[in-house]
């Protein structure tokens, strides 16, 4: 068997293929980031509308971010057992914690003139949020998404410790138990490459979503 075949050969006890593990890894990473974004948008809107709730929200977020992933997984085993949900909920919370400040700070960078102009054109709070402030906050939102996504990809592997719920991370227990360094290389490299690829995709998305930024640099 060639080296190449060996690299993509997943031990039979994991009952999965390499592509299956990659898909699982993507699902465990992206679903939480998506949920986190959907929850973060209304929270950020509220923080923007009622400025006084932002400091306490930031405080709660900092405390949640301090809860170690492994501890978080363990607490949830009690409720959801050793399942995908147990891994996805903490990752959702972490991405929420990164995204809310990113969006709020991004929206704060919208200048008072622009907001006043939107109001003068008859935009209501919601319409101004979605059509003016949110698009201008896109670079900050993407910066938050990059941190949440890339660290999410590598956090998923910790799920291995709670009953093989770590997708590509599951290769690591086999690597250690059967002393097969190649499996560890496989896990580390695959996870790092997925992380970097997702990061590149997000940067591309930012370029596509903010055509005005490109025009400004082209001048």
């Amino acid at each position: 068997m060639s080296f190449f075949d060996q690299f993509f050969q997943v031990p039979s006890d994991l009952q999965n293929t390499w592509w299956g593990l990659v898909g699982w890894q993507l699902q465990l990473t992206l679903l939480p980031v998506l949920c986190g974004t959907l929850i973060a948008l209304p929270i950020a809107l509220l923080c923007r509308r009622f400025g006084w709730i932002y400091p306490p929200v930031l405080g709660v977020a900092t405390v949640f971010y301090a809860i170690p992933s492994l501890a978080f997984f363990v607490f949830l085993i009690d409720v959801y057992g050793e399942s995908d949900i147990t891994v996805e909920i903490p990752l959702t919370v972490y991405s929420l914690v990164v995204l809310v400040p990113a969006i709020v700070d991004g929206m704060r960078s919208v200048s008072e003139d622009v907001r006043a102009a939107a109001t003068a054109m008859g935009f209501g709070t919601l319409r101004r949020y979605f059509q003016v402030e949110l698009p201008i906050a896109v670079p900050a939102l993407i910066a938050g998404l990059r941190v949440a996504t890339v660290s999410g990809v590598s956090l998923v592997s910790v799920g291995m410790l709670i009953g093989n719920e770590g997708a590509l991370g599951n290769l690591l227990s086999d690597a250690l138990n059967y002393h097969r360094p190649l499996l560890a290389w496989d896990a580390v490299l695959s996870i790092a490459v997925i992380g970097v690829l997702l990061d590149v995709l997000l940067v591309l998305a930012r370029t596509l979503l903010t055509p005005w930024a490109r025009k400004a640099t082209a001048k």
Partner: protein
Amino acid sequence: MNLFGYAQQFFDAPGRWSGADGIPNRLLEHTQYSALALLIAMLIALPVGLITGHTGRGGNVLAVLATAARALPSFGLLVLLTLLMGLGMTPVMVPLVALAVPPILVTTYEAMRSVDPSLVDAAQGMGLPRWRVLCQVELPVALPLILSGIRSGAIQIVATATIAAYVSFGGLGRYIVDGLSQVDYAKVVGGAVLVAALALATLGVFWLLGRVLVSPGVRRGR
């Protein structure tokens, strides 16, 4: 039984508060690993961040390095290095340091960049040499942000130092790893509670450090 029940069962167990597997010793080990890793990370990240931030060069290179380091799975790195080098402290330290360097490096750089240029100008106009501008003007002004970078690095190290237990070392991760393999859920929960508490305590320590170290003038201005 609910989580509180499990936690109580763990903390009430006989012999829990003494000996090598007692809470005080595991807490000490965990703190030692974390402090060592944070120290190494600061020794690497702070000088590089301060100098690149001061000169304003190399920001893009730092951002790429930070993303690359963030994409490396700590747990995977630990297993890989253990397999390559054998059991030892280096395979534990490398992933922990790699975890803390990006936040410290990037925030230090950003903090130095965000110092009001007119302050630096004024200091230079008063004839301060370059190193005194760096140490007496830029550093104190940038300190709150720099501390926040070190704080997030420290919290991530404390949270992740549990993995040391997976390769035969001590620390609070011992309870989680042992508990999982002994199917002793109370032990797992107890370990998790302790790690979370230590992470929150770290948050508190950095809040205090901010009160003590940041100059009152800078604090008022924020």
